[in-house]
Protein backbone atom coordinates (compact mmCIF):
# COMPACT_ATOMS: atom_id res chain seq x y z
CA UNK A 1 0.00 0.00 0.00
CA UNK A 2 3.02 2.23 0.02
CA UNK A 3 2.34 4.46 -2.92
CA UNK A 4 -0.25 4.58 -5.62
CA UNK A 5 2.06 5.80 -8.35
CA UNK A 6 0.92 9.38 -8.36
CA UNK A 7 3.35 12.16 -9.11
CA UNK A 8 4.83 13.07 -5.78
CA UNK A 9 5.94 16.17 -3.99
CA UNK A 10 8.23 15.69 -0.99
CA UNK A 11 7.73 17.89 2.06
CA UNK A 12 10.75 17.72 4.35
CA UNK A 13 9.53 18.44 7.87
CA UNK A 14 11.68 20.44 10.25
CA UNK A 15 9.06 20.44 12.99
CA UNK A 16 6.78 23.38 12.17
CA UNK A 17 3.35 23.33 13.80
CA UNK A 18 1.75 23.90 10.41
CA UNK A 19 3.65 21.45 8.15
CA UNK A 20 0.51 19.35 7.68
CA UNK A 21 -1.22 22.34 6.16
CA UNK A 22 1.28 22.37 3.26
CA UNK A 23 0.10 18.88 2.34
CA UNK A 24 -3.52 19.92 2.77
CA UNK A 25 -3.19 22.91 0.43
CA UNK A 26 -1.46 20.72 -2.16
CA UNK A 27 -4.21 18.11 -1.94
CA UNK A 28 -6.71 20.85 -2.73
CA UNK A 29 -4.69 21.41 -5.90
CA UNK A 30 -4.91 17.67 -6.71
CA UNK A 31 -1.26 17.09 -5.96
CA UNK A 32 -0.09 14.09 -3.98
CA UNK A 33 2.51 14.94 -1.35
CA UNK A 34 4.24 13.09 1.45
CA UNK A 35 5.62 14.60 4.65
CA UNK A 36 8.83 13.05 5.96
CA UNK A 37 10.98 14.14 8.91
CA UNK A 38 14.37 15.58 7.96
CA UNK A 39 16.24 12.78 9.77
CA UNK A 40 14.90 10.26 7.30
CA UNK A 41 16.01 12.02 4.14
CA UNK A 42 19.05 10.41 2.50
CA UNK A 43 20.26 10.18 -1.09
CA UNK A 44 18.91 6.64 -1.27
CA UNK A 45 15.55 7.78 0.08
CA UNK A 46 15.36 10.58 -2.49
CA UNK A 47 16.20 8.24 -5.34
CA UNK A 48 13.54 5.74 -4.28
CA UNK A 49 10.83 8.33 -3.77
CA UNK A 50 11.69 10.23 -6.92
CA UNK A 51 9.78 13.43 -6.11
CA UNK A 52 8.96 16.01 -8.77
CA UNK A 53 9.60 18.88 -6.35
CA UNK A 54 10.63 19.47 -2.75
CA UNK A 55 9.28 21.84 -0.10
CA UNK A 56 11.31 22.51 3.04
CA UNK A 57 8.98 23.26 5.96
CA UNK A 58 9.36 25.75 8.75
CA UNK A 59 10.71 24.70 12.12
CA UNK A 60 11.48 25.89 15.64
CA UNK A 61 15.29 25.67 15.40
CA UNK A 62 17.92 28.17 14.24
CA UNK A 63 20.31 27.36 11.38
CA UNK A 64 22.95 29.27 13.35
CA UNK A 65 22.99 26.43 15.92
CA UNK A 66 25.84 23.96 15.59
CA UNK A 67 23.55 20.96 15.37
CA UNK A 68 20.88 22.64 13.24
CA UNK A 69 18.70 20.17 11.34
CA UNK A 70 19.58 20.16 7.62
CA UNK A 71 18.68 18.05 4.59
CA UNK A 72 21.40 16.24 2.61
CA UNK A 73 23.20 18.39 0.02
CA UNK A 74 22.07 15.98 -2.69
CA UNK A 75 18.66 17.71 -2.86
CA UNK A 76 20.41 20.38 -4.92
CA UNK A 77 21.70 17.88 -7.50
CA UNK A 78 18.30 16.51 -8.45
CA UNK A 79 17.46 19.29 -10.83
CA UNK A 80 13.95 19.68 -9.42
CA UNK A 81 12.28 22.83 -8.03
CA UNK A 82 12.75 23.51 -4.32
CA UNK A 83 10.72 25.87 -2.14
CA UNK A 84 11.93 26.77 1.33
CA UNK A 85 9.38 28.14 3.79
CA UNK A 86 10.51 30.17 6.83
CA UNK A 87 13.14 27.93 8.49
CA UNK A 88 13.28 26.13 5.13
CA UNK A 89 14.30 29.38 3.43
CA UNK A 90 16.99 29.90 6.03
CA UNK A 91 18.21 26.34 5.41
CA UNK A 92 18.59 27.18 1.71
CA UNK A 93 20.57 30.30 2.48
CA UNK A 94 22.74 28.53 5.05
CA UNK A 95 23.60 25.76 2.58
CA UNK A 96 23.93 27.83 -0.59
CA UNK A 97 26.18 30.62 0.63
CA UNK A 98 23.83 33.22 2.07
CA UNK A 99 23.70 34.34 5.69
CA UNK A 100 21.13 34.05 8.45
CA UNK A 101 21.27 36.13 11.58
CA UNK A 102 19.61 35.65 14.91
CA UNK A 103 17.12 38.50 15.12
CA UNK A 104 18.81 40.35 12.23
CA UNK A 105 15.97 42.80 12.47
CA UNK A 106 13.00 42.53 14.79
CA UNK A 107 11.15 39.23 14.92
CA UNK A 108 7.80 39.10 13.16
CA UNK A 109 4.81 37.17 14.39
CA UNK A 110 1.38 37.30 12.82
CA UNK A 111 0.00 39.35 9.97
CA UNK A 112 2.55 41.35 8.00
CA UNK A 113 2.40 43.41 4.81
CA UNK A 114 4.45 42.03 1.93
CA UNK A 115 5.60 44.42 -0.85
CA UNK A 116 6.65 43.41 -4.34
CA UNK A 117 9.99 44.52 -5.66
CA UNK A 118 10.21 45.72 -9.26
CA UNK A 119 11.40 42.38 -10.67
CA UNK A 120 8.71 39.90 -11.67
CA UNK A 121 8.77 36.26 -10.65
CA UNK A 122 6.87 33.20 -11.91
CA UNK A 123 6.25 32.11 -8.31
CA UNK A 124 4.36 35.34 -7.55
CA UNK A 125 2.32 35.48 -10.75
CA UNK A 126 -1.20 36.67 -9.92
CA UNK A 127 -0.44 36.76 -6.18
CA UNK A 128 -0.55 40.54 -5.81
CA UNK A 129 -3.97 42.06 -6.35
CA UNK A 130 -2.64 45.28 -4.87
CA UNK A 131 0.80 46.58 -3.99
CA UNK A 132 0.69 44.99 -0.57
CA UNK A 133 -0.52 41.55 0.34
CA UNK A 134 -1.15 40.27 3.85
CA UNK A 135 1.08 37.35 4.73
CA UNK A 136 1.52 35.42 7.95
CA UNK A 137 4.99 35.47 9.51
CA UNK A 138 6.40 33.65 12.49
CA UNK A 139 10.15 33.99 12.77
CA UNK A 140 12.93 35.17 15.05
CA UNK A 141 15.87 34.66 12.68
CA UNK A 142 16.09 36.39 9.29
CA UNK A 143 18.14 36.05 6.13
CA UNK A 144 20.73 38.85 6.17
CA UNK A 145 22.60 38.14 2.93
CA UNK A 146 21.77 36.19 -0.22
CA UNK A 147 24.18 34.52 -2.65
CA UNK A 148 24.85 36.11 -6.05
CA UNK A 149 22.59 33.82 -8.06
CA UNK A 150 19.60 34.89 -5.94
CA UNK A 151 17.43 37.98 -6.27
CA UNK A 152 14.83 39.63 -4.00
CA UNK A 153 11.21 39.70 -5.16
CA UNK A 154 9.32 40.58 -1.98
CA UNK A 155 9.98 42.47 1.23
CA UNK A 156 8.28 43.31 4.48
CA UNK A 157 9.22 45.93 7.05
CA UNK A 158 11.28 43.48 9.05
CA UNK A 159 12.27 40.94 6.40
CA UNK A 160 14.48 42.34 3.66
CA UNK A 161 14.49 38.97 1.92
CA UNK A 162 10.87 37.87 2.32
CA UNK A 163 10.79 36.33 -1.19
CA UNK A 164 13.99 35.25 -2.92
CA UNK A 165 14.75 33.03 -5.89
CA UNK A 166 17.41 31.58 -8.11
CA UNK A 167 15.20 31.34 -11.18
CA UNK A 168 17.72 29.36 -13.23
CA UNK A 169 17.95 26.55 -10.71
CA UNK A 170 14.29 26.93 -9.73
CA UNK A 171 15.12 27.39 -6.05
CA UNK A 172 12.71 29.62 -4.10
CA UNK A 173 12.56 30.85 -0.56
CA UNK A 174 9.83 32.67 1.35
CA UNK A 175 10.03 33.95 4.91
CA UNK A 176 6.25 33.86 5.42
CA UNK A 177 3.92 30.84 5.56
CA UNK A 178 1.93 30.41 2.33
CA UNK A 179 0.22 27.29 3.72
CA UNK A 180 -1.90 29.05 6.38
CA UNK A 181 -5.29 30.64 5.76
CA UNK A 182 -3.98 33.96 7.08
CA UNK A 183 -1.89 34.25 3.92
CA UNK A 184 -4.69 34.72 1.37
CA UNK A 185 -2.39 34.53 -1.67
CA UNK A 186 -0.60 31.48 -0.31
CA UNK A 187 -2.60 28.96 -2.28
CA UNK A 188 -1.90 30.83 -5.50
CA UNK A 189 1.80 30.82 -4.67
CA UNK A 190 1.77 27.06 -4.09
CA UNK A 191 -0.16 26.59 -7.30
CA UNK A 192 2.49 28.60 -9.16
CA UNK A 193 5.18 26.45 -7.58
CA UNK A 194 3.39 23.31 -8.73
CA UNK A 195 3.13 24.71 -12.27
CA UNK A 196 6.84 25.47 -12.27
CA UNK A 197 7.37 21.85 -11.18
CA UNK A 198 5.22 20.52 -14.03
CA UNK A 199 2.62 18.62 -12.02
CA UNK A 200 -0.23 16.98 -13.89
CA UNK A 201 -2.71 17.32 -10.98
CA UNK A 202 -3.56 13.62 -10.99
CA UNK A 203 -4.57 13.26 -7.35
CA UNK A 204 -8.35 13.03 -7.06
CA UNK A 205 -10.58 10.96 -4.82
CA UNK A 206 -11.88 9.08 -7.89
CA UNK A 207 -8.40 8.14 -9.06
CA UNK A 208 -7.51 7.18 -5.50
CA UNK A 209 -10.58 4.98 -5.26
CA UNK A 210 -9.81 2.98 -8.39
CA UNK A 211 -6.15 2.53 -7.60
CA UNK A 212 -6.90 1.66 -3.97
CA UNK A 213 -9.38 -1.04 -4.96
CA UNK A 214 -6.86 -2.54 -7.40
CA UNK A 215 -4.15 -2.48 -4.70
CA UNK A 216 -6.38 -4.18 -2.14
CA UNK A 217 -7.21 -6.95 -4.63
CA UNK A 218 -3.55 -7.67 -5.36
CA UNK A 219 -2.50 -7.35 -1.76
CA UNK A 220 -5.17 -9.64 -0.29
CA UNK A 221 -5.32 -12.25 -3.05
CA UNK A 222 -7.27 -15.30 -1.84
CA UNK A 223 -6.82 -14.45 1.84
CA UNK A 224 -9.44 -13.20 4.27
CA UNK A 225 -9.79 -9.86 5.98
CA UNK A 226 -11.44 -8.78 9.20
CA UNK A 227 -12.32 -5.19 9.93
CA UNK A 228 -13.47 -3.70 13.22
CA UNK A 229 -16.38 -1.29 12.92
CA UNK A 230 -16.81 1.44 15.49
CA UNK A 231 -19.81 3.13 13.97
CA UNK A 232 -17.61 6.03 12.88
CA UNK A 233 -16.87 7.28 9.39
CA UNK A 234 -13.25 6.06 9.09
CA UNK A 235 -13.87 2.40 9.83
CA UNK A 236 -17.07 2.41 7.75
CA UNK A 237 -15.34 3.80 4.67
CA UNK A 238 -12.47 1.33 5.18
CA UNK A 239 -14.87 -1.59 5.32
CA UNK A 240 -16.92 -0.53 2.34
CA UNK A 241 -13.87 0.16 0.17
CA UNK A 242 -12.40 -3.26 0.99
CA UNK A 243 -15.76 -4.89 0.33
CA UNK A 244 -15.81 -3.29 -3.12
CA UNK A 245 -12.43 -4.88 -3.78
CA UNK A 246 -12.79 -8.38 -2.34
CA UNK A 247 -16.50 -8.90 -1.60
CA UNK A 248 -17.32 -11.63 0.90
CA UNK A 249 -13.70 -12.34 1.79
CA UNK A 250 -14.28 -9.48 4.24
CA UNK A 251 -15.90 -9.99 7.64
CA UNK A 252 -16.69 -7.02 9.84
CA UNK A 253 -16.77 -7.18 13.60
CA UNK A 254 -18.83 -4.56 15.38
CA UNK A 255 -18.09 -4.37 19.09
CA UNK A 256 -21.06 -2.54 20.55
CA UNK A 257 -19.88 -1.25 23.94
CA UNK A 258 -23.26 0.25 24.78
CA UNK A 259 -21.77 3.74 24.84
CA UNK A 260 -22.96 4.85 21.42
CA UNK A 261 -25.40 7.59 20.54
CA UNK A 262 -29.14 7.02 20.17
CA UNK A 263 -29.92 4.69 17.27
CA UNK A 264 -26.29 4.41 16.20
CA UNK A 265 -25.73 0.69 16.70
CA UNK A 266 -28.95 -0.15 14.90
CA UNK A 267 -28.10 2.03 11.94
CA UNK A 268 -24.61 0.53 11.56
CA UNK A 269 -26.01 -3.00 11.58
CA UNK A 270 -28.79 -2.09 9.20
CA UNK A 271 -26.51 -0.30 6.78
CA UNK A 272 -23.81 -2.95 6.60
CA UNK A 273 -25.84 -6.11 6.90
CA UNK A 274 -29.02 -5.16 5.08
CA UNK A 275 -27.99 -2.48 2.59
CA UNK A 276 -24.47 -3.49 1.69
CA UNK A 277 -24.81 -7.22 2.45
CA UNK A 278 -21.46 -7.31 4.20
CA UNK A 279 -20.73 -10.18 6.61
CA UNK A 280 -21.09 -8.68 10.05
CA UNK A 281 -20.59 -10.05 13.53
CA UNK A 282 -22.45 -7.84 15.99
CA UNK A 283 -21.20 -8.27 19.55
CA UNK A 284 -23.39 -6.64 22.16
CA UNK A 285 -21.11 -6.20 25.13
CA UNK A 286 -22.64 -3.30 27.08
CA UNK A 287 -22.78 -5.17 30.41
CA UNK A 288 -19.13 -6.17 30.13
CA UNK A 289 -18.00 -2.61 29.53
CA UNK A 290 -20.20 -1.09 32.24
CA UNK A 291 -18.95 -3.61 34.81
CA UNK A 292 -15.35 -2.88 33.98
CA UNK A 293 -15.97 0.85 34.40
CA UNK A 294 -17.68 0.48 37.78
CA UNK A 295 -16.21 2.87 40.34
CA UNK A 296 -13.75 4.42 37.89
CA UNK A 297 -13.85 8.20 37.64
CA UNK A 298 -10.44 9.14 36.21
CA UNK A 299 -10.88 10.02 32.51
CA UNK A 300 -7.56 8.49 31.42
CA UNK A 301 -8.31 5.23 33.20
CA UNK A 302 -11.76 5.15 31.63
CA UNK A 303 -10.22 5.52 28.19
CA UNK A 304 -7.62 2.80 28.84
CA UNK A 305 -10.12 0.31 30.22
CA UNK A 306 -12.38 0.75 27.21
CA UNK A 307 -9.48 0.53 24.74
CA UNK A 308 -8.10 -2.66 26.30
CA UNK A 309 -11.47 -4.31 26.66
CA UNK A 310 -12.22 -3.52 23.04
CA UNK A 311 -9.08 -5.35 21.99
CA UNK A 312 -9.86 -8.27 24.27
CA UNK A 313 -13.36 -8.75 22.88
CA UNK A 314 -12.14 -8.32 19.34
CA UNK A 315 -9.33 -10.83 19.82
CA UNK A 316 -11.59 -13.46 21.32
CA UNK A 317 -13.92 -13.43 18.39
CA UNK A 318 -11.46 -13.41 15.55
Amino acid at each position, binding site marked *: *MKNLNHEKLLII*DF*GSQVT*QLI*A*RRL*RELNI*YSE*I*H*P*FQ*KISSVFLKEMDPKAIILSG*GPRSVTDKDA*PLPPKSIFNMNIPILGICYGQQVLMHMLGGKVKKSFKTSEFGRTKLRKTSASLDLLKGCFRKKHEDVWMSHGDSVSKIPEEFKVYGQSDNATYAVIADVNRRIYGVQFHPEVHHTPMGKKLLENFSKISGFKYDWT*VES*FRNKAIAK*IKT*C*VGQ*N*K*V*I*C*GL*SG*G*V*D*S*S*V*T*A*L*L*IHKAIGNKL*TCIFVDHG*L*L*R*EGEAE*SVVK*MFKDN*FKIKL*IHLKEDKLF*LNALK*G*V*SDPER*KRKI*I*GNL*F*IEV*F*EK*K*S
Partner: protein
Amino acid sequence: MKYLKKKAKEIKDVTFLAQGTLYPDVIESVSPTGGPSAKIKSHHNVGGLPKKMKLKLLEPLRELFKDEVRTLGKEIGLPKEFVSRHPFPGPGLAIRCVGEINQEKVDLLRKVDSVFVDQIRKHGLYDEIWQAFAALLPAKSVGVMGDQRTYNYSCALRAVTSVDGMTADYYPFSHNFLGETSARIVNEVKGINRVTYDITSKPPGTIEWE
Protein backbone atom coordinates in the same frame (compact mmCIF):
# COMPACT_ATOMS: atom_id res chain seq x y z
CA MET B 1 -23.18 -18.28 20.96
CA LYS B 2 -23.23 -21.17 18.53
CA TYR B 3 -23.53 -18.74 15.68
CA LEU B 4 -20.51 -16.85 16.89
CA LYS B 5 -18.40 -19.96 17.27
CA LYS B 6 -19.33 -21.00 13.79
CA LYS B 7 -18.54 -17.53 12.49
CA ALA B 8 -15.24 -17.42 14.30
CA LYS B 9 -14.27 -20.75 12.76
CA GLU B 10 -15.31 -19.60 9.36
CA ILE B 11 -12.97 -16.65 9.52
CA LYS B 12 -10.21 -18.53 11.25
CA ASP B 13 -7.80 -18.36 8.35
CA VAL B 14 -7.86 -14.61 8.39
CA THR B 15 -4.56 -13.02 7.41
CA PHE B 16 -5.40 -9.33 7.28
CA LEU B 17 -6.72 -6.90 9.81
CA ALA B 18 -8.19 -3.74 8.28
CA GLN B 19 -7.98 -0.44 10.11
CA GLY B 20 -9.26 3.05 9.38
CA THR B 21 -5.90 4.71 9.92
CA LEU B 22 -5.69 8.16 8.31
CA TYR B 23 -2.71 10.18 7.10
CA PRO B 24 -2.54 12.47 10.16
CA ASP B 25 -2.15 9.30 12.29
CA VAL B 26 0.90 8.09 10.40
CA ILE B 27 2.85 11.27 9.78
CA GLU B 28 6.03 10.84 11.75
CA SER B 29 6.43 13.70 14.15
CA VAL B 30 9.66 15.67 14.36
CA SER B 31 10.95 16.12 17.88
CA PRO B 32 11.29 19.88 18.52
CA THR B 33 14.88 19.54 19.69
CA GLY B 34 15.84 17.98 16.37
CA GLY B 35 16.98 14.76 18.00
CA PRO B 36 17.40 11.71 15.82
CA SER B 37 14.41 9.80 17.11
CA ALA B 38 11.27 10.35 15.13
CA LYS B 39 8.20 8.94 16.76
CA ILE B 40 5.26 7.40 15.02
CA LYS B 41 1.94 8.01 16.67
CA SER B 42 0.05 4.84 17.48
CA HIS B 43 -3.44 4.76 16.12
CA HIS B 44 -5.77 5.86 18.87
CA ASN B 45 -8.55 3.41 18.05
CA VAL B 46 -6.71 0.14 18.20
CA GLY B 47 -3.28 0.76 19.72
CA GLY B 48 -1.44 -2.48 20.40
CA LEU B 49 -3.79 -4.63 18.42
CA PRO B 50 -1.60 -5.67 15.50
CA LYS B 51 1.30 -6.87 17.63
CA LYS B 52 -0.84 -9.22 19.67
CA MET B 53 -2.78 -10.61 16.76
CA LYS B 54 0.00 -11.45 14.34
CA LEU B 55 -2.12 -10.31 11.46
CA LYS B 56 -0.96 -8.26 8.53
CA LEU B 57 -2.37 -4.77 8.53
CA LEU B 58 -4.50 -3.43 5.74
CA GLU B 59 -4.90 0.33 5.97
CA PRO B 60 -6.28 1.59 2.67
CA LEU B 61 -6.97 5.13 3.94
CA ARG B 62 -3.53 5.85 5.33
CA GLU B 63 -2.84 8.42 2.64
CA LEU B 64 -6.03 10.42 3.16
CA PHE B 65 -7.11 13.36 5.27
CA LYS B 66 -10.47 13.33 7.04
CA ASP B 67 -12.36 15.41 4.50
CA GLU B 68 -11.02 13.22 1.69
CA VAL B 69 -12.33 10.16 3.55
CA ARG B 70 -15.75 11.83 3.67
CA THR B 71 -15.64 12.53 -0.07
CA LEU B 72 -14.53 8.96 -0.77
CA GLY B 73 -17.29 7.62 1.47
CA LYS B 74 -19.92 9.46 -0.54
CA GLU B 75 -18.25 8.29 -3.76
CA ILE B 76 -18.59 4.63 -2.84
CA GLY B 77 -22.17 4.91 -1.68
CA LEU B 78 -22.35 5.83 2.00
CA PRO B 79 -25.30 8.14 2.68
CA LYS B 80 -24.42 11.83 2.87
CA GLU B 81 -25.91 12.22 6.38
CA PHE B 82 -23.73 9.37 7.56
CA VAL B 83 -20.39 10.68 6.27
CA SER B 84 -21.05 14.22 7.47
CA ARG B 85 -21.83 13.18 11.03
CA HIS B 86 -20.00 15.01 13.77
CA PRO B 87 -16.85 13.33 15.15
CA PHE B 88 -17.49 10.88 17.99
CA PRO B 89 -14.77 9.60 20.35
CA GLY B 90 -13.92 5.88 20.56
CA PRO B 91 -14.77 5.60 24.29
CA GLY B 92 -18.13 7.11 23.40
CA LEU B 93 -20.57 8.34 26.00
CA ALA B 94 -18.29 7.08 28.80
CA ILE B 95 -16.16 10.20 28.55
CA ARG B 96 -19.20 12.44 28.31
CA CYS B 97 -20.57 11.17 31.62
CA VAL B 98 -18.22 13.17 33.81
CA GLY B 99 -16.77 10.98 36.58
CA GLU B 100 -18.11 7.55 37.48
CA ILE B 101 -20.59 6.02 35.08
CA ASN B 102 -23.51 3.62 35.35
CA GLN B 103 -26.37 2.43 33.16
CA GLU B 104 -28.77 5.10 34.45
CA LYS B 105 -26.36 7.93 33.65
CA VAL B 106 -25.50 6.62 30.19
CA ASP B 107 -29.18 6.24 29.33
CA LEU B 108 -29.98 9.76 30.58
CA LEU B 109 -27.11 11.22 28.60
CA ARG B 110 -28.09 9.38 25.44
CA LYS B 111 -31.57 10.89 25.64
CA VAL B 112 -30.32 14.42 26.31
CA ASP B 113 -27.84 14.16 23.46
CA SER B 114 -30.51 12.96 21.08
CA VAL B 115 -32.88 15.85 21.93
CA PHE B 116 -30.05 18.38 21.53
CA VAL B 117 -28.95 17.02 18.15
CA ASP B 118 -32.56 16.82 17.03
CA GLN B 119 -32.99 20.51 17.89
CA ILE B 120 -29.87 21.40 15.91
CA ARG B 121 -31.05 19.46 12.88
CA LYS B 122 -34.54 20.96 13.10
CA HIS B 123 -33.08 24.46 13.08
CA GLY B 124 -30.85 23.60 10.12
CA LEU B 125 -27.61 24.21 12.02
CA TYR B 126 -26.05 20.73 11.92
CA ASP B 127 -23.64 21.34 9.04
CA GLU B 128 -22.49 24.70 10.42
CA ILE B 129 -21.29 23.02 13.59
CA TRP B 130 -18.11 20.94 13.85
CA GLN B 131 -19.28 18.96 16.86
CA ALA B 132 -22.30 19.13 19.15
CA PHE B 133 -23.07 16.92 22.10
CA ALA B 134 -24.28 16.80 25.68
CA ALA B 135 -22.27 15.97 28.79
CA LEU B 136 -23.81 14.64 31.98
CA LEU B 137 -22.47 16.45 35.02
CA PRO B 138 -21.63 14.46 38.16
CA ALA B 139 -23.63 16.78 40.40
CA LYS B 140 -27.31 16.63 41.23
CA SER B 141 -29.10 19.87 41.87
CA VAL B 142 -32.34 21.02 43.35
CA GLY B 143 -35.23 22.03 41.15
CA VAL B 144 -38.97 22.44 41.24
CA MET B 145 -41.37 20.80 38.82
CA GLY B 146 -45.06 21.31 39.30
CA ASP B 147 -45.41 21.49 43.06
CA GLN B 148 -42.67 18.99 43.64
CA ARG B 149 -39.16 19.67 44.72
CA THR B 150 -36.77 17.66 42.52
CA TYR B 151 -33.21 16.55 43.06
CA ASN B 152 -31.88 15.47 39.69
CA TYR B 153 -28.88 15.48 37.38
CA SER B 154 -27.75 18.52 35.45
CA CYS B 155 -26.24 18.47 31.98
CA ALA B 156 -24.04 20.68 29.84
CA LEU B 157 -24.54 21.24 26.13
CA ARG B 158 -21.50 21.79 23.96
CA ALA B 159 -21.39 22.95 20.34
CA VAL B 160 -18.28 24.27 18.61
CA THR B 161 -17.15 25.47 15.23
CA SER B 162 -13.71 24.53 13.98
CA VAL B 163 -11.77 24.08 10.75
CA ASP B 164 -9.64 21.15 11.86
CA GLY B 165 -10.39 20.39 15.51
CA MET B 166 -7.13 22.00 16.62
CA THR B 167 -8.79 25.22 17.76
CA ALA B 168 -12.50 25.77 18.32
CA ASP B 169 -15.04 28.44 19.21
CA TYR B 170 -18.34 27.85 20.95
CA TYR B 171 -21.34 28.15 18.64
CA PRO B 172 -23.36 31.37 19.19
CA PHE B 173 -26.87 29.90 19.48
CA SER B 174 -29.69 32.39 19.83
CA HIS B 175 -31.29 32.68 23.26
CA ASN B 176 -34.51 31.45 21.73
CA PHE B 177 -32.81 28.28 20.56
CA LEU B 178 -31.19 27.72 23.95
CA GLY B 179 -34.44 28.35 25.81
CA GLU B 180 -36.42 26.01 23.59
CA THR B 181 -33.77 23.29 23.84
CA SER B 182 -33.52 23.56 27.61
CA ALA B 183 -37.32 23.30 27.95
CA ARG B 184 -37.44 20.25 25.67
CA ILE B 185 -34.67 18.45 27.56
CA VAL B 186 -36.16 19.01 31.00
CA ASN B 187 -39.62 18.02 29.75
CA GLU B 188 -38.62 15.02 27.68
CA VAL B 189 -35.82 13.52 29.75
CA LYS B 190 -37.00 12.45 33.17
CA GLY B 191 -34.11 12.75 35.60
CA ILE B 192 -32.66 16.03 34.29
CA ASN B 193 -33.68 19.29 35.94
CA ARG B 194 -30.94 21.71 34.89
CA VAL B 195 -29.38 22.56 31.52
CA THR B 196 -26.24 24.64 31.01
CA TYR B 197 -24.44 25.75 27.85
CA ASP B 198 -20.64 25.52 27.71
CA ILE B 199 -19.17 28.74 26.28
CA THR B 200 -15.46 27.87 26.55
CA SER B 201 -13.19 28.10 23.50
CA LYS B 202 -10.36 25.69 22.68
CA PRO B 203 -7.78 26.63 23.87
CA PRO B 204 -8.00 26.97 26.86
CA GLY B 205 -10.74 24.33 27.02
CA THR B 206 -10.87 21.09 25.05
CA ILE B 207 -13.84 20.11 22.93
CA GLU B 208 -14.66 17.03 25.00
CA TRP B 209 -15.15 17.24 28.75
CA GLU B 210 -12.86 14.31 29.59
